[in-house]
């Protein structure tokens, strides 16, 4: 069975998992998608990612590869014949890596803060988030994609956050399109690719998921045990002084 040669352990709303799904789709790779019921992590997940215990994990011929950006590069290097995701020129490749790294370091945390903090702190977080998006927007500039004419690695790193924008815009009462029109234009351009449009869940579905999870956790009483990250799959929170595990 061809499908079982490639297995993806994932969680549907995860923007990190989506990156891998897009890469697999771009290459036309058949795979076995295994939805992980976080926080009840499967034995397979714990075995394949003992260090971080996180999704996504790609299992190829029985061997695990972890960390979404590393997985995307692995996919590109292993299935070389079709749809290159990395630029061929080393300098442009280094730039693509830099920007994917920037997204990893900045966007996730800023997005989270802008949606979950309150009052003055939220305003500050929103501003920071918009600033980060503006830097990214500036990098894209007038080009169709991050690195030029071809959709690739850096685009994949950022575009998966697009389906989460609606949630945080609604929570924070602002419009990202108003602040960064060129960025949204770029995102919509990416959405015209089947690999992206078929991977990204509907923004409203993401919003519903987030609101349901938040109501289960009782937003005002959440205390971080570790990085509050539903899609990173830790699933253990401190609620009213007790450790609880939340099912999604």
């Amino acid at each position, binding site marked *: 069975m061809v499908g079982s040669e490639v297995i993806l352990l994932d969680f549907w709303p995860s923007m990190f998992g989506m990156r891998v799904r897009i890469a697999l789709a771009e290459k036309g790779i058949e795979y076995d998608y295994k939805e992980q019921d976080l926080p009840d992590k499967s034995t397979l997940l714990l075995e394949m990612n003992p260090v971080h215990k996180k999704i996504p994990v790609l299992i190829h011929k029985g*061997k695990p*590869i972890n960390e979404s950006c590393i997985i995307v590069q*692995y996919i590109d290097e292993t299935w070389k014949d079709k749809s290159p995701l990395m630029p061929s020129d080393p300098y442009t490749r280094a730039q693509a890596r830099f920007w994917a790294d*920037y997204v990893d370091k900045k966007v996730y945390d800023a997005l989270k803060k802008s949606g979950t903090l309150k009052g003055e702190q939220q305003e500050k977080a929103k501003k920071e988030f918009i600033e980060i998006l503006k830097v990214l927007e500036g990098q894209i500039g007038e080009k169709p994609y991050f690195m030029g004419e071809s959709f690739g690695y850096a685009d994949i790193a950022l575009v998966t956050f697009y389906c989460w924008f609606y949630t945080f815009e609604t929570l924070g009462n602002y419009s990202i399109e108003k602040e960064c029109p060129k960025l949204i234009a770029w995102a919509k351009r990416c959405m015209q690719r089947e690999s992206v449009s078929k991977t990204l869940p509907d923004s409203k579905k993401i919003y519903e998921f987030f609101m349901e999870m938040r109501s289960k956790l009782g937003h005002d009483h959440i205390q971080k045990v570790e990085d509050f990250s539903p899609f990173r799959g830790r699933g253990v929170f401190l609620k009213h002084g007790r450790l609880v595990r939340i099912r999604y």
Partner: protein
Amino acid sequence: MADEVTLYADGRSPFVCRVKIALNMKGIKYKNMEEDLQNKSGALLNYNPVHKKVPVLVHNGNPILESLVIVEYLDNVWERVPILPQDPYEKAAARFWAKFIDDKCIPALYKVFSSKGEEEQVITEACEQLQILEDELELKGKKFFGGDNINLVDIAADFIAYWLQLLEEATEMKLVTRSKFPKITEWAEGFVNCQVVKEMLPPRAIMLAYYKNRFGKI
């Protein structure tokens, strides 16, 4: 056409040192521009407006940023003495460990010293990360993360091999003891004694003085 390679650096930085080790391994000639980080040069700010940090490598006028991105770039352009494995799976594994060191180990270790070792939780967290590396070395059973020769992971862990020890000495706080982390201790000794590494490390005295000033007990 002669390659023009310039490195914007701070000789004390383990991140800068990663790049220097890679340059040294590959025998690449370069110009070192030492930066005063309290007073950054116009050139540095021009090449790295986003993060305003060193290291920055400029190759024939093109700037490359972020130490691990630079190391991979050097590996792509100068193929001799490879730093990353050729096999895609091994390459992915090397990148994973380098990222783990950058994202988890180093921040956890810094926290111990910047919090003056006063919080037990911080120390426990740092030791947990070190234990993961210890286990990996045990599993690999070789002299280095890269096997018989150093690779991306060893280079990424340079802080642990050299700077950590000096931080411990300056602050009189010992984390990596031979009894607790025998593999890491052995690996560190091997790493700092590599010719290509030794030549690039900043002098002990300078680092000790810097750390005593920044973190040391008064």
